[in-house]
């Protein structure tokens, strides 16, 4: 099944051809659509996450949480966003206004760009670039520059400390993260996210990578939390010591960009965990089996639409399960100190991820059938 599944671009181009538009123009018309879709999807994902965060936090503390803005307070994040949108944009008098403005943008843009590689189905992703997951690792390494920039430009000691902490944390946790991704790539023989998911979907839930890479899964999740600056690793913005870290001087829409960036990053990390370890769009039971039970050929339109929607739902479901877990973790664990953070990163996760890589490589040589030949 190399090219099965929905291919919306192809159908779009054919429809355009039907209207008598040349393929090149059709391609130009097609280009902005996925980008727009990604922006909308990311923002909606953030809104849902913010709502979930508030509700789950409330439940963990035996509160009710937002209740009156829409049913179950579902419009509360919209209200928050609207408030930030119309708030006064303040640039401190002694701040470096250019870098101050550029910082949040540099934080947000790479995160949104990384959505390019998140697959929701066989052809349901923006671009199946060959370097796939490596692109995400590369893009996420830009973020610390934005954080340092905003920390420096705010001309505030708390901001600078927060920015420095964020950069240190980001650099330290990128290495075990990349190493655990590398173990996956080693088993898949490909960097492409689509290949990684496909390779996991032979036997449904049994063939997911989490069974072959349990240690890698844990390392990846810990590092992803650290990269997102979620509790217990939120010390760049530790409110008890640093007011709000690099966000201290920000207000209005620029603050909203940080806020948006951190939540998009969280959703993205959860999506990537589900792609790398939990079989991405894969249903726990392979769809081909379902199709054979229903006595439908795999390429019939009904089955294709069904697999497409199941794929989207499964990816989102897995990702939000992980987001829920992250929120649960937030209310369970206390914040680590900076030395504990660096100890964990360099002295624990790095050696373990190296050993994990070594073990994966040797297992691959020993059992090429189970660990990707």
């Amino acid at each position, binding site marked *: 099944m190399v090219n099965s599944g929905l291919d919306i671009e192809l159908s779009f181009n054919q429809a355009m051809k039907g209207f008598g538009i040349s393929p*090149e123009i059709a391609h*130009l018309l097609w280009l902005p659509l996925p980008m727009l879709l990604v922006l909308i999807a990311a923002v909606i994902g953030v809104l849902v996450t913010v709502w979930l965060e508030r509700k789950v936090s409330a439940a963990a503390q035996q509160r009710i949480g937002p209740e009156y803005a829409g049913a179950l307070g579902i419009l509360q994040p919209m209200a928050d966003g609207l408030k930030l949108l119309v708030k006064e944009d303040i640039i401190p008098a002694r701040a470096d206004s250019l*870098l101050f403005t550029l910082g949040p943008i540099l934080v947000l843009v790479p995160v949104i760009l990384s959505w390019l590689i998140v697959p929701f189905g066989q052809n349901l992703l923006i671009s199946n*670039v*060959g*370097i796939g997951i*490596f*692109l995400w*690792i*590369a*893009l*996420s*390494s*830009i973020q*610390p*520059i934005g954080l*340092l*920039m905003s*920390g*420096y430009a705010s001309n505030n000691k708390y901001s*600078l400390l927060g*920015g*420095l902490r964020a*950069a*240190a944390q*980001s*650099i330290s946790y*990128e290495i075990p993260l990349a190493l655990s991704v590398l173990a996956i790539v080693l088993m898949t023989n490909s*960097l492409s996210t689509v290949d990684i998911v496909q390779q996991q979907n032979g036997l449904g839930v049994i063939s997911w990578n989490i069974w072959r890479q349990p240690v890698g899964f844990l390392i990846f999740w810990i590092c992803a939390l650290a990269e997102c600056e979620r509790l217990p690793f939120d010390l760049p913005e530790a409110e008890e010591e640093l007011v709000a870290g690099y966000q201290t001087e920000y207000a209005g829409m620029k603050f909203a960009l940080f806020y948006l960036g951190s939540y998009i990053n969280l959703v993205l990390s959860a999506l990537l965990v589900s792609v790398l370890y939990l079989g991405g769009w894969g249903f726990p039971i392979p769809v081909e089996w379902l199709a054979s039970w229903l006595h439908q050929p795999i390429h019939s339109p009904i089955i294709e639409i069904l697999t497409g929607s199941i794929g989207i739902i499964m990816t989102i479901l897995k990702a939000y399960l992980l987001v829920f877990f992250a929120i649960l973790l937030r209310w369970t664990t206390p914040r680590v100190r900076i030395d504990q953070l660096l100890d964990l990163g360099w002295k624990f996760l790095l050696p373990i991820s190296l050993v994990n890589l070594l073990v994966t490589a040797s297992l691959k040589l020993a059992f090429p059938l189970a660990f990707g030949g």
Partner: protein
Amino acid sequence: MHIAQYTELICFIILGAVIIIGSLGVVLLNNIVYSAFLLGGVFMSIAGLYLLLNASFVAAAQVLVYVGAVNVLIIFAIMLVNKREELSPIKGLKLRRFISGGVCACLLGLLIRVNLTTKWNMPGPASIGEGSTVRIGEHLFTDYLLPFELASVLLLMAMIGAIVLARRDVLNTDEETQEKINQEIIEEKKQPLLIDQSS
């Protein structure tokens, strides 16, 4: 020309302009922080050029290594020691600048000359696109194994050097007073913060 070629040309012009202006800014700007951030911009634009050349793996590696590691460390170092003090004036600064400018101009002339006289094999071999990742891996572990390993040894040496410089307490004698340092204090076993009550 196709639309794709036009976009490519426009992208190339923009990226080239950003690289040239950015690198001039890195050298000429007085504020060292701006220089560092501009350096990041230049690295990014170079990654963009790689992308234009269909070398996406190299572009990503460029971003990861140069922007994500090198540039962040440079900015990090600048911010840790950022004192905002006036540098002491150097004697004959104008003459020095003139000479270095002259050297740079000569280098530029040389490069332009090389560029014009060399017979470029246009349009060059067809790009292999996505296959480049595999090709790079193969080359790194066959033809270029020695330089690759040498580079890693170099990095290891740099790392050990950094550790030695950063951890003065590893040395036996104090650098300034030449007194013996009591190693036992350093090697003393760390006391756990929480006493284990189970035992």
